[in-house]
């Protein structure tokens, strides 16, 4: 039976659920012009949640509710950074949503519910919890993508996301049922021991394949990437920034829980599968991005290639590889939040700033914005000394140590190909003439300007002082 101790272990999650319900009620009784209060309250709620996660962190991994929930270092680091990126999302989203009459309380509550899903997912100790956490996250995301319901593009994106997401969940469940059939347990810890001596190894491997398909869909790794460009382009940019940043941390957490915690003994089977997914993602992401003219689509293909790099680290299947992948996921989440934050900050009522051509001559109009955008693009491309560089270096190193030298070489070649389209954005900003009669400038909102500048400068600072963060990532996988 659950006792008080179990509830204390889940305190951050319970607190967020209660806070989300209160915000929902508050919104119902609030006048539309009082909504900025809700905005600041939501940010405060998330900051308190970060405090609860860090302050209540036990020195050793503990489980609650009969092993359903694990609170360990991996969960802590993923929770802290997904909450943090969600705070960034809230900051960037406000002026954009206000300009488009989408500034509703449900944006905040649904996003908080999605974050609760992420927190449950990365702490899951049982296949059922993995599935339920994922459903909570994706169901909230479907609604968020469709938030701009009068836009055809947005509805189309939501339908695509919903259908493909349901298909992926079905695949994942199918794989889980096979794994359950082969081992007779849903608990990830017991699964780890039972997977070694099952009477039905073929069924287990089939289950593993279906689960990897499900994970591939959620990460957006090729060949399961079809939904990414349409969803990124179609959904309101304020929602894209959430899908593109915090959700990637959740996808890493899911892959880690399922593959490493649950089926770590089968790593000789899944290493090569992940390597294939990685090569395909790198190729499709980097090559197709070259021909994109829409900035959001370009960033979508960039996501696909970045998920390829993340998988390169996971192929190592050891603490070194998990730490490198985790570091990569964090660096990507923060950089991606900054990239979409830039689009949000440059957009205004009636102008989305979605096309690359919209950035023409940005340097002459707003040098600071052009400088920030340049840093973001360099970090995505992996130019030293920015944040993205060390992530790439560490995952390549992990792959080489696991004996996958060819994979690291392929990754390096595609990183150079990828450099081209990131540099094209920089070239357009600095060397092209601005189009007459158009106007692009940063948002007037002070909080957006301040947080965005801090976010981008953090890329530079964390790129130079990357040791402590990587040390934290390494420490959670030891023992």
């Amino acid at each position, binding site marked *: 039976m659950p006792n008080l101790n179990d509830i204390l272990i*889940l305190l951050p999650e319970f607190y967020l659920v209660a806070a989300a319900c209160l915000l929902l009620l508050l919104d119902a009784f609030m006048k539309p012009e009082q909504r900025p209060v809700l905005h600041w309250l939501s940010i405060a709620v998330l900051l308190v949640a970060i405090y609860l996660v860090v302050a209540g962190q036990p020195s050793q991994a503990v489980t609650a509710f009969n092993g*359903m929930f694990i609170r360990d270092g991996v969960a802590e680091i993923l929770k802290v950074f997904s909450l943090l990126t969600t705070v960034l999302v809230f900051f960037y989203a406000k002026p954009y949503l206000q300009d488009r009459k989408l500034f509703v309380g449900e944006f905040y509550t649904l996003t908080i519910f999605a974050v609760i899903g992420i927190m449950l997912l990365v702490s899951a100790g*049982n296949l059922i919890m993995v599935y339920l956490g994922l459903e909570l996250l994706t169901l909230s995301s479907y609604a968020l993508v469709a938030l701009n319901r009068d836009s055809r593009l947005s509805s189309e994106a939501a339908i695509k996301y919903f259908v493909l997401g349901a298909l992926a969940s079905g695949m994942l469940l199918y794989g889980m049922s096979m794994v359950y059939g082969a081992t007779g347990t849903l608990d990830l810890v017991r699964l780890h021991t039972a997977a070694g001596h099952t009477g039905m190894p073929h069924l287990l491997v089939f289950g593993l394949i279906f689960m990897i398909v499900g994970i591939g869909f959620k990460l957006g790794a090729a060949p399961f990437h079809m939904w990414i460009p349409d969803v990124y382009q179609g959904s309101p940019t304020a929602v894209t920034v959430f899908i593109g940043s915090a959700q990637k941390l959740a996808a890493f957490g899911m892959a880690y829980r399922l593959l490493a915690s649950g089926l770590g003994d089968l790593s000789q089977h899944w290493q090569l599968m992940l390597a294939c997914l990685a090569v395909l993602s790198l190729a499709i992401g980097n090559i197709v991005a070259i021909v994109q003219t829409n900035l959001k689509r370009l960033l979508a293909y960039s996501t696909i290639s970045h998920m390829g790099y993340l998988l390169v680290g996971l192929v190592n299947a050891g603490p070194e590889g998990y730490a490198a992948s985790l570091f990569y996921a964090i660096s990507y989440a923060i950089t991606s939040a900054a990239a979409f934050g830039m689009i949000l900050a440059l957009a205004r009522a009636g102008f989305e700033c979605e096309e690359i051509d919209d950035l023409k001559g940005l340097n002459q109009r707003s040098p600071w914005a052009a400088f920030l955008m340049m840093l973001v693009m360099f970090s995505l491309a992996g130019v030293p000394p920015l944040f993205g560089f060390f992530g790439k270096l560490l995952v390549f190193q992990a792959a080489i140590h696991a004996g996958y030298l060819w994979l690291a070489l392929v990754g390096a070649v595609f990183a150079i190909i990828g450099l081209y389209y990131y540099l094209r954005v920089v070239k357009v900003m600095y060397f092209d003439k601005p189009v007459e009669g158009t106007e692009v400038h940063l948002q007037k909102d002070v909080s957006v300007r301040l947080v965005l500048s801090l976010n981008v400068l953090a890329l530079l600072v964390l790129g130079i002082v990357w040791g402590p963060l990587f040390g934290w990532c390494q420490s959670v996988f030891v023992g």
Partner: protein
Amino acid sequence: MIDPNMFQLVCFYAFAAVTVVAALGVITLRNTVHAVLSLVLTFFSTACIWLLAEAEFLAIALIVVYVGAVMVLFLFVVMMLDIKQEHVREGFIKYLPVGIIVALVMLGEMLALIGVRAMHQAVMGADPATVAGMSNTAWLGNALYTQFLLPFEVAALILTVGVVAAVVLTLRQRTGVRHQQASQQVRVNPRDRVRVVKMAAEVPAAPQPAPGKETTP
């Protein structure tokens, strides 16, 4: 005498085959009513497989909730979509053969299940419910509120999100809509509504002689 193990296996494959064929029917049949009837059959066959696995409560819940409520509602909606009255009536005869086939297959499955029940001899291995000396439903309830309490609560959270999402995506607040206000209606005073005006009675004017030839005698 048939070997009960064998019979159970045959039943399982038969139910599974019906499920797959019916599921294929759902996505291939062009007629929507036929597709819905196939879906009913799919659910029913799945419930039969669950009964074979001794998950009685789940099987009954599937039939009551899905076949009984959701699917019948769905069937009504599909049939109502074509609003012409004579069409609906025509449909009854037209869909009768498919309906009868579905009903007959269901009947066959039920008979087979009763056969399994009659010959049942603990062939499924140790069932936690039987080990605990409880009925399937009682055991499920117990497990749901102790061992699986957290997933159960999270499922409730997912339903909450479903409700919020449904409201966000469908509620439209239109401006300029006229509403009835009951409290104001009740508070109305008859004197505000009817005003009695005093005025002098109208006297009909005396008939005026028509001009023209009538004046001449």
